[in-house]
């Protein structure tokens, strides 16, 4: 057990190192420089440019820049090139804005996918199964931005509520109407956030359940005359649920990915939108830090899922 932990920790640190090198190289080797982002601006004289390059070590060789950058990042000193604010503080602020979206979206995904997937598996081939399958494909295939606009048109014309942004501008900051306003603003992006997840996860639950239902011990349980509900929910479901314990770890990276377009459409001041703005402004510290954090989230997520798998499934315990 300890050997496994140590080995996987070392492996993950090496992976993280290479991710940091590759993302650094991608950004710094791309043509163009952040100092040239606004060439028409008369304030950017040659002198200012030189000072800018010196200030952010852009005149140094690449490996020195790499060292400086990650030293600043780890000691928490790196600042955004756009507004000179600390990157970590900026990300934390935006992270708090993204969090409700993420939590509600994940809740929607996980609470809806399981019943849908399990019922589809139990009634394999029925109308219910076929229609949920088709619906899942529809949700996977629909472009997120198109779905967003359909929902916006529907909600705005039917319920006459504003949905763009985090709250209606200038609304009084307490009371029932404020709460409802927040809920309406939160609801659409969360549904969008969860929709793709429901499609993928419910299909996965269905396949997993089907696999277990086909096994001999389930047939034995049926043969000895147990009630169907007991066979499905007590015998089959428990084993079918095993792989999903590990998926708890894999939700983590979702904090960042996939929210760029949704937050862009809804003008939601979260992490995805911040990343998008940073890319437009060539704000390298913010881009690289977001990338680095999401790589850490992926690695931590896989680590947690490995651990959970070992805890719940004695068959693979080392």
């Amino acid at each position: 057990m300890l050997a496994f932990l140590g080995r996987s920790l070392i492996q993950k640190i090496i992976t993280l190192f290479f991710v940091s090198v590759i993302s650094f190289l991608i950004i710094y080797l791309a043509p163009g420089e952040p100092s040239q982002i606004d060439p028409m601006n008369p304030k950017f004289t040659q002198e200012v440019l030189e000072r800018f390059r010196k200030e952010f070590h852009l005149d140094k060789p690449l490996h020195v820049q790499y060292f400086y950058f990650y030293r600043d990042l780890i000691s928490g000193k790196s600042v955004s090139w756009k507004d000179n604010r600390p990157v970590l503080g900026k990300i934390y602020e935006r992270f708090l804005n993204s969090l409700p979206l993420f939590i509600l979206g994940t809740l929607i995904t996980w609470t809806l996918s399981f019943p849908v997937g399990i019922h589809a598996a139990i009634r394999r081939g029925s109308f219910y199964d076929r229609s949920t399958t088709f619906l899942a494909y529809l949700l996977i295939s629909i472009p997120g931005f198109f779905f967003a606009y359909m929902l916006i048109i529907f909600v705005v014309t039917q319920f006459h509520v504003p949905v763009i942004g985090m709250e209606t501008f200038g609304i009084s900051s307490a009371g029932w109407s404020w709460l409802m306003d927040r809920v309406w603003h939160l609801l659409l992006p969360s549904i969008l956030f969860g929709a793709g997840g429901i499609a993928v996860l419910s299909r996965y639950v269905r396949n997993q359940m089907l696999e277990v239902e086909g096994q001999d011990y389930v047939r034995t349980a049926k043969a000895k005359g147990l009630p169907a509900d007991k066979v499905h929910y007590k015998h089959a479901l428990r084993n079918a649920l095993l792989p999903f314990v590990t998926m708890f770890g894999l939700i983590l990276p979702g904090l960042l990915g996939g929210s760029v377009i949704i937050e862009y459409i809804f003008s939601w001041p979260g992490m995805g939108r911040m990343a998008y703005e940073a890319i437009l402004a060539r704000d390298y510290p913010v881009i690289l830090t977001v990338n680095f954090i999401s790589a850490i989230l992926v690695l931590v997520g896989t680590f947690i899922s490995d651990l959970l798998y070992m805890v719940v499934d004695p068959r693979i315990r080392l």
Partner: protein
Amino acid sequence: MMGVNEKRGSAFPEGGVLETPKKTLFQENWGLFRKNRLAMAGLMIFVAFFIIALTGRILTYGRDPYFNPALVRLQEKLRPPLSKPNMETLKPEEVPRLGIYLFGTDDLGRDVFSRMFQGSWVSLTVGFVAVSIAVVIGVFLGGIGGYYGSSQISLGYLLASVLLGGGIIGILLGGTAVGVLMVLLGAAVAAVLIRMGNSKGKRPIPMGFSVLFFNLFSVDVLITGLIDIMLCFPSFFLILTVVALLPASIYNIMIVIGLTSWMGAARFVRAEFLSLREQDFITAATALGVSNWRIIFRHMVPNAMSPVLVSATIGIATAILTEAGLSFLGFGVPPPDATWGNILSSGKDFLFDAPWLTFVPGFAVLIVVLAFNLFGEGLREVLNPKLRER
């Protein structure tokens, strides 16, 4: 030589006389596939989309295209679908070819039908080229990982390749002196390695050089490590970053999507190769003295392709969605060329006044992507006997 799964069925009846099977594998699979109505619908839409995109390429590009997607008619802006053009205000060459605006016009009075027609070619090529790049890289790396997985990479080889690669990158970036020095050093190490490798076993290796043959890690560790590293990047964010930093061009998008989505194919091929390598027909081929490359490409790759084919079909759908998302955010194909994503993107400002600018491209993307997904899933069920209904 007879392929392993070309012939099936009852090849040896009671009489002991060889008899050709009644159906080839393709006919058998086709029969199964045809029963899946959703997948068949997907295939038909796929074929139709292919034809539409090809004719779109012919009819909307060039100096004087048959359907002109860039023709601005400001007096005819935001006309709803199926509306008739106002003949008095239009010059004869500005009248739309079909006599009506089939899908309406946008905020500059351009015919949305022509623009959609042009965009179909962009979607098709992005999907196919990006996935082809991903499949080639994936099959190559996965194949190496699966076939040569257990061979070791020694310190010398790593040193030589790092020096050579670093030197070439250095020269490309302008550091000529350092780059040339590194390339020369790398070449020297490689030369020593090859000389020693040839005489290995015949003569003892001199003391100082044996360190070059110190084994570091296996090829498999290298390939799986590479896959793990690539999986750490948030894919859409990475693609967005690279596309935003590079000059706007459709080819950059294809290459970037291809370079960031080969991991699935590599994993499948590696897993298939690991199991195929142990099978009898490969042992037989090795015993016959068939070369490694011939074993890989003639015997193993065809048997490992079915999961790759499925993931490629679904990959095309994902690539089309990604391209539409990028165009929507304003990156990618530079104007005035139309893509489905940027038609929708410019339509979002007129969401309530001109909803067709959102709905027409939106439904087009939805239908095409859905068709690819359904076709891919149907293919998966046919090619993977475990998923068939019993």
